[in-house]
């Protein structure tokens, strides 16, 4: 059914009220996390759009603290899995253990049975462990022995990768990276933020504990509203143009990009771009998507979905460079 003008106005008002918790969450997280607003914002987008986040950044940038604080603020269960080369799939999803007293096998659930998972240094574990996690992310259920368990909602995986130490790592294949809605690259804090971090850490007694400002059920309600955010066909066309420009740049007068791109964004890229733009609009307390929302989220949704050729790598061209060129060439509606 097509939305009318009054429907959108009502939706806008509804979302304006329902999205108020975003400010509350930001305030609560701001108590312990200095800076990193961009990362927190992306985590919330992932949470609201039901997508997972791959985080790339050097150690010590408050990745664990952010997701731990977020889970506390939502009153959700958090678990952290440190990926190592000797990790086994059973260490992630769980296994069957023999109970001598009862003379039977019982299920021992793994750390993945939580609302928020921090998969630290995901590229340090072998492919079978990675795929066990990524399958769980996709299916949102786990099978141990003959038993299938549905994972709790909300379920958000924040996987991290260290961009500097590549030796002894198992690079995630393209097909698996594609399952992450966002790939966020985080940088160092500013000087002012760093000063705050020092002061906060030197005086831990003064730190205020995170309190639960919303419940997981509120997130589930918000997710439903995010899906209802109005997206005009002009915006849909804009999203499709961006994704198609990564596949056929020559059709957008970007012939020079053709030899630099080995593969473009998949249909999953279009879906995630639309979903993430809706979530971003929700966070901005709007009931409709505008081109700014798409542009704002575009790099994080697309950067891991654009394959680079050897030529591009030899010329130090990054997927961000390619996306910038595309965004500067595709007409905004």
């Amino acid at each position, binding site marked *: 059914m097509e939305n009318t003008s009054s429907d*959108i106005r009502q939706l806008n008002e509804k979302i304006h009220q329902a999205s108020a918790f975003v400010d509350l969450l930001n305030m609560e997280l701001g108590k312990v996390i200095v800076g990193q607003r961009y990362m927190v914002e992306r985590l919330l987008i992932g949470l609201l759009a039901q997508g997972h986040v791959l985080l790339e950044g050097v150690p010590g940038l408050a990745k664990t603290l952010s997701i731990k604080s977020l889970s506390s603020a939502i009153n959700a269960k958090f678990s952290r899995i440190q990926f190592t080369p000797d990790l086994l799939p059973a260490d992630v999803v769980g296994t069957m253990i023999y109970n001598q007293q009862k003379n039977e096998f019982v299920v021992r659930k793994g750390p993945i049975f939580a609302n928020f998972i921090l998969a630290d240094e995901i590229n340090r574990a072998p492919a079978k462990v990675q795929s066990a996690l990524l399958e769980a992310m996709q299916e949102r259920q786990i099978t141990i022995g003959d038993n299938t368990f549905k994972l709790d909602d909300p379920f958000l995986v924040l996987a991290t990768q260290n961009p500097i130490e590549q030796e002894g790592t198992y690079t995630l294949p393209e097909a698996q990276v594609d399952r992450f809605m966002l790939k966020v690259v985080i940088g160092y804090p500013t000087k002012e933020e760093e000063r705050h971090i020092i002061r906060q850490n030197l005086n831990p007694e003064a730190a205020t504990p995170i309190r639960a400002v919303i419940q997981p059920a509120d997130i589930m309600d918000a997710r439903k509203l995010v899906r209802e955010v*109005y997206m005009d066909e002009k915006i849909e066309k804009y999203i499709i143009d961006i994704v198609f420009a990564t596949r056929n740049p020559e059709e957008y007068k970007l012939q020079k990009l053709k030899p630099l791109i080995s593969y473009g964004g998949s249909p999953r890229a279009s879906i995630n771009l639309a979903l993430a733009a809706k979530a971003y609009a929700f966070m901005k307390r709007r009931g*409709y998507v505008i081109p700014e929302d798409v*542009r704002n989220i575009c790099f994080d949704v697309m950067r891991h979905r654009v394959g680079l050729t050897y030529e591009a790598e030899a010329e130090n061209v990054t997927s961000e460079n390619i996306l910038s060129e595309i965004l500067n060439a*595709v007409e*905004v509606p």
Partner: protein
Amino acid sequence: MYKQQVIRRILLSFFIGLLFPFGLLAQQTLEVTAKADTSNIRIGEQVKLHLRATVPAAVFNKPEFRLLFPTVPDSLEHFEVVNRSNLDTLTQQDLKVLQQTLTVTSFDSGRWEFPPLKFEVYGANGANSIDTLFSQPLGIDVNTVAVDTTKAFKPIKTVQAVPWNIWDYWLYIAIGAAVVLIVLGLLLYFRKRPEKKPAVKLPLVTPYELAVQQLKSLKGEQLWQQGDIKQYYTRLTDILRTYFEHQFGIAALEQTSEELLNNIKPVTKLNQQRDKLRALLAIADLAKFAKLQPTADEHEDCMHKAEEILEWTRPKEEPVVPEEKPQKGA
């Protein structure tokens, strides 16, 4: 006396008449020969050996007639066969002549005899007759090169230059000449080609004039009056964005409203109209992406704002400088 002469003539005619059948008979027999073109060669030199069989045509045309030339091996005693020609057939009056040439050499000095060669004839004297004919043996002297030992030995001669000949280079010369002719032809063609008449330049429409025309046309189309509000605002913002792009070099068509408002900051004249532009774009975005239905006053106001922005940023017209006329007597 006369009688004696007559008798002599009769006797002569009689003897000639007696000999005639023998001459015919001689012509009718099958002969084979082997002849060398020389009987004296230097060691390693080649000698042509012509094998020849003469067959009367009447015999040759018999269906059962077959003549097999000798099969000479590559190596004979003291001789080597270098080459064998194909069998050649000639017609001479009532005779058929079959011939083959062998090229033979020898590397042994001395006088050697090339052995008689065997020709086999089938069906010459009846359907089942078999005859064998042999050629005569051929004596060939093979001499060594005489070395004058009284003279000093001389070094081996160096590579001798082939005398220069213009015909060895005719192809290169022809190509060079052709290239020169083509170049000359092209030069002549481009010199004599009639010059293109310069295209008549139409008076250019400035971005400002174009935008004003488009706004006028948009007004005339009465889109919002017909309820096509989305299209009205899409066209209105597109006109302004195109104007900014052409007039100020801002890639406005590829920028969102917020980016555009940020990027007009360096253009002072345009930045002075920032608030108006912001208000216009905000309403346009709501109409385009959120199905907002602005009031008639808001539609008019947006059009008015667009016109004001255009008017404010209208480029100054450069005064036309009249050409100076040359004074008389100057």
